[in-house]
């Protein structure tokens, strides 16, 4: 069967891959592009482990067909850090012990970035609702919520964040 040619920008790089028409973006990112930081926890959009930014919008990659990504801009957990520094929320996750097993962590980091990109000063409740699509079974969310609040504070004090 002929496979579909997809061109998109992933973590800043123009990327091409071939995929089946009914393949999910999650499978394409993991198996065709090799970005295994994007995790599959359920395949049905319920756990958020495969969270990516698709054209700047927080998206479960398991709910999108790979051919739909043609022309899109995608950010995965692998694209959050620069060569010099981690994204502030990656840093606060480390310092605040906001991960235990770490398999949900990529999705949480992407979801947290999506929140902080448009809300630089979220309340605890806003953080909890922004992360409600991401399941963590290890931490009870306490340290995750604190890490996101800490990252927001760090980014505000660094002037790294401005509201939309």
């Amino acid at each position, binding site marked *: 069967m002929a496979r579909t040619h997809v061109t998109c920008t992933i973590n800043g790089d123009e990327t091409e891959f071939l995929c089946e028409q009914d393949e999910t973006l999650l499978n394409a990112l993991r198996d065709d592009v090799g970005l295994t930081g994007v995790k599959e926890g359920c395949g049905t959009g319920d*756990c958020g482990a495969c969270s990516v930014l698709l054209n700047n919008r927080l998206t479960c990659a398991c709910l999108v067909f790979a051919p739909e990504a043609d022309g899109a801009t995608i950010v995965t957990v692998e694209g959050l850090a620069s060569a010099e520094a981690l994204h502030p929320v990656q840093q606060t996750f*480390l310092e605040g012990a906001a991960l*235990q097993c770490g398999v949900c962590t990529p999705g949480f980091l992407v979801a947290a970035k999506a929140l902080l990109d448009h809300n630089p000063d979220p309340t605890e409740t806003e953080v909890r609702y922004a992360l409600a699509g991401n399941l963590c079974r290890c931490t009870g969310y306490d340290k995750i919520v604190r890490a996101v609040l800490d990252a927001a504070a760090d980014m505000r004090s660094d002037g790294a964040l401005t509201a939309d």
Partner: protein
Amino acid sequence: MTVTDEPTANPGYKQVGTRPIRPDGLDKVTGKARFGADLVLPGMLEGAVLRSPHPHATIVAIDTSAAEAMPGVHAVITGADFPDLAANGARPDDVLMSKNVMARDKVLYEGHPVAAVAAATRKQAKAAAAAIDVTYELLPHVLTVEQAMADDAPILHEGMRTRGLDPAPEVDSNIASRITHERGDLDQGFADADLVVERSFTTKPVHQGYIEPHAAVADASQDGRANLWCSSQGHFSMRTSTAKVLGWEPTRIKVTPAEIGGGFGGKTVIYLEPLATLLSLRSGRPVRLVMDRDEVFRASGPASGTSLRVKVGVTEDGQLTAADVWMAFEAGANPGSPVGAAGMTVLAPYDIPNFFVEGFDVVVNKPRVAAYRAPGAPMAAFAVESVLDELAAGIGIDPVELRLRNAVTEGSQAAYGPKFPVIGFVETLEAIRDHPHYQTELGPNQGRGVAAGFWFNAGMNSTATVNVNEDGNLTVVVGSPDIGGSRSSMCLMAAEELGIDVGRVNAIVADTETVGFNDVTGGSRVTLATGAAVVDACRQIKDDLRGRAAKTWDVEVDVVEWVDGQAQHVDGSETPLTLGELAAKWGRTGGPISATAALNARGVGPAFSTQVCDVEVDPETGEVTVLRYTTAQDAGTAIHPSYVEGQMQGGVVQGIGWALNEEYIYSDDGHLENPGFLDYRVPVASDLPMIDTVVVEVPNPAHPYGVRGVGEVGIVPPLAAVGNAIAAATGVRLTDLPMSPPRVLDAINRAAGDGGD
């Protein structure tokens, strides 16, 4: 936001009790960490498993010919491809384990594996699995302990007789075993009581709910050996079990641990590993098998559904006089529920002079249960701690005070037998009683509940190697999969021993051929047992380093001491030699510096937790909101306080989910109706408040750093703490989990009807 209390770590420690960034952290926040499903090998095939659609049926025939002819298919296996362990004289448990990973003559639950396929793509493998033609002859099934224990119940295992009965029974039964514990005179105990409360309780099966599905990659060779990569709580145990099922010597398999995406007890057993290995052997190619989420729900885990009856008596001044406990635990398709542990833990926190505990391990047509965090204890504690709440209210004393008056202390004879060593139960009760949370006022429709819990903790076998590198930094090599930050704890203990900064120590989890044997990461045992092995190895290294300094200075070794990362002459007559300096000169003092310790850890330190929960109940919908939660737990010593708090918080939240939402829902025809996270609803961030922690530290005198183990006991109290809070808020006692909105609303309405006009 409430500030988390700092634990009162021993002020003499310089590394232990600090909160460094974990060694594996960077890989986990950048997406580099490789979990079970992330490995790709050249030429790797993808696998799929065909599972039974029936809860109970005889397999009449399996025709794989159509599947084998399909495009991309390289291998198809069924039960006929596995050795008959029973014929080879294997232990009955191993025979059942083998039949659980691949059904033979019959299927025992929906989701039971019947065949497996390896193909070029996952899509091809799934299509081929679906094309396998299985002829079943349906059998009647049982789904609950009540159905399974009925006299005319259909029998799952022919020839299974109940163990623990005298005289031994002469008919087959679904009751695999009966356990009892007793003390004193039960009738006299209840006669001495001023108040007796008796209640019946039920809990549903719940899943461990790890976010990473089971995954295994196998690469078998023509010489009959295999490499296996899998996500598990114990790669040595995966090796042993896989080898048993295949009829191999264990050392034909090398298992390399992947990072593990949560386990909570559910990744201590094999599912995919022997299938992937055999598919690889048959196809001559590496094979990857990954469960879909619905397979995880249908065929792995869960924790037992239970039925319990508890009767406890108390005097008007708050002395417990007697307890009568009856428990039946669903084991799933094969015997082995944690009813034994439930029976041992159920009364463990309290000194009760007269008791009788009876428990039954019952097979039903559901997936075989697996361990789940303090297996058996949460359901048992739900029942007893709920009854204690009613007793405290009935005699008009504070529920924490009732527990304090009956709490076990050092020297108390535990209900399950031995005398308790140094324990910190009273300290956790006092921590909750004295916590500001316990004094705050509540509003309308709000209630507060407390509950306590006990867990044994475990020791078992561990091996660790510590290598000094040429720059004087350490590498700690362990064989205990790290599911919650244990590598960090190993680094801290090694750094403390050698008197160096923790940043100079790295820890790795090595494969089955790089480090000696280790039991599973379970029983809250790793920081205790593997930690003890690391400390032992570090002490050997210190002795070695002192010897090398003595040789360098040409003095007796007993005048050399190791202080703050360097060798010193006791009279200060020599210039100290640092670890780095000694490492740089190892060629002249005996060669590289390395030590290994292997031990079976003794001196286990039991764990206790006391928790307080505030809820608000919406009287119109029955929805329960957890407003505030505080947990006090005796950690012994918190090696890395952040990860101790994390274990406490994670256990509490799993318990809240168990209390309020989570349950396996089966249709009458034996099909699981909610095999996904949409309908099996685990707690999400917006459901919860912060979980405040009080890390109590009553050091375990039998461990070099006072460690007890912290992973499990936190999940024991929440079921009752939440239930007691709901009772306080509504005046209604709920005895069936989960306390979901329909059940709570129904209970409120029934109570209003009963007591109303």
